[in-house]
């Protein structure tokens, strides 16, 4: 049986949510909650989005041009590409907090100069208490650590550069 307080909670939650209809059935009890709201247009939303659009676009322009440009390379650029291809980027597979060490008192998993194998754990990325140990996935040497302990990292963000063997 649902208690009155629980039903009250349900009503509040459904009211606050985008759910239009809610049905719940448990031993002998059935609750159906339905919202009868006319679909109200939100006039404020459109202009706000438009006003924000140019502001949001700005950072995109600032993005650095990627080094491995595929435009007809001359000799010098070719060399650079070759150097770059030796450097493997370990990227973050999800948004979350970057931890360089297994716990605050421990040494970091790897530092610049550390030799890694494909299965070497290089860091942890955590989101909502899900801990993801990131492995190097290549054999080589760490040449640069691109992020700091405790930093929020984005999906696909490079974390380390590895000189592959």
């Amino acid at each position, binding site marked *: 049986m649902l208690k009155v307080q629980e039903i009250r909670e349900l009503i509040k939650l459904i009211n606050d949510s985008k759910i239009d209809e809610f049905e719940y059935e448990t031993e002998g009890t059935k609750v159906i909650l339905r919202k009868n709201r006319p679909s109200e247009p939100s006039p404020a939303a459109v202009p706000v989005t438009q006003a924000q659009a140019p502001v949001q676009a700005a950072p995109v322009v600032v993005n650095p041009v990627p080094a491995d440009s595929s435009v007809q390379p001359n000799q010098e650029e070719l060399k650079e590409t070759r150097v770059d291809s030796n450097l493997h980027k370990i990227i973050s597979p999800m948004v979350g907090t970057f931890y360089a060490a297994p716990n605050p008192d421990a040494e970091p998993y790897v530092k610049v100069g550390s030799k890694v194998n494909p299965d070497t754990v290089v860091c942890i990325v*955590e*989101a*909502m*208490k899900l801990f993801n140990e990131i492995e190097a996935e290549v054999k080589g040497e760490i040449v640069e650590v691109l992020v700091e302990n*405790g930093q929020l990292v984005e*999906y696909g963000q490079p974390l380390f550069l590895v000189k592959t063997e």
Partner: protein
Amino acid sequence: MPSTKARILMMLFEHPHQFISGQEMSDAIGCSRTAVWKQIKELEKDGYRIESIPKKGYRLKGTPNRISPEEILAGLKTEIFGRHIVYEPSMPSTQKRAHHLAEDGAPEGTLVISDEQTEGRGRLGRTWHSPKGTGIWMSLILRPKLSLNKIPQLTLMTAVAIVKAIKVVTGIECQIKWPNDIFYNGKKLVGILTELQAEENQAKAVIIGMGMNVNLTEQDLPDDIKKIATSIQMITGKPCSRAHLIQDIMKQMESFYHFYLEDGFGLIKTLWETYAMNIGRIITARNVNGQVVKGLARGINDEGVLLLEDQEGRIHRIYSTDIEFNG
């Protein structure tokens, strides 16, 4: 194939108030009646109290204070969750064991349980106090076909499932502290630690570790933990069957898991917000580097990320933190 002893124990648990004859058991298992009798004696040595009456058979009267896979399996109402149990009286850490089993290909739904953890651990290498015979210390292996950015939602799902299971079995209504700690009256009752084995952008295995204080009493808790933790028995004043709790947690988790894979995060988000203790309150979020954001907890977004509004009205997305109230 379970041992003869395990199968006899299973049968006893499946018929909690009835006598089963030695003949019935020997027929079902395919062994002699003498073998049944021998194993009954073995079970008695293990601490099971078994009533035996000539011409009627055997009946289970009491169990030792330990978790047995047979007892869990006998009342388990799931298809795969908890169907394969790896149990040992003592383990360093069920989470560590589950990791090894997952690497060796253990199937989805494998449940690792111990009566005692000697090196139980929590977030960021913190220890988890798990004394013998008092709690549920277990780790469940899942193999969801999900991209990695979806996996954190499973930790919120687990919290919702456990809150429901505790309510069903004990009547206690707990609350969730973002993202997935379970509290009663401001004291911690359950901790959940989720870890991932990944390859490229796909999860190979998700290992959900759960630590629940069930029959701990005040004497079991060190002074520093007493202030911040509680147990089911400390709340209700009586011991609670750990096997029943485990059975219901598995059932709730399995049903939410199917729901999540088919219909997404929506229902779980709603239930999570119903159980949440910090939404609508001023809280302080502190990250590992000591950076602090204070603001009003607005709720969670569709990914499960905590939304915190500071005094200037800016919304901060919180992915990981230690939460303090009114700090």
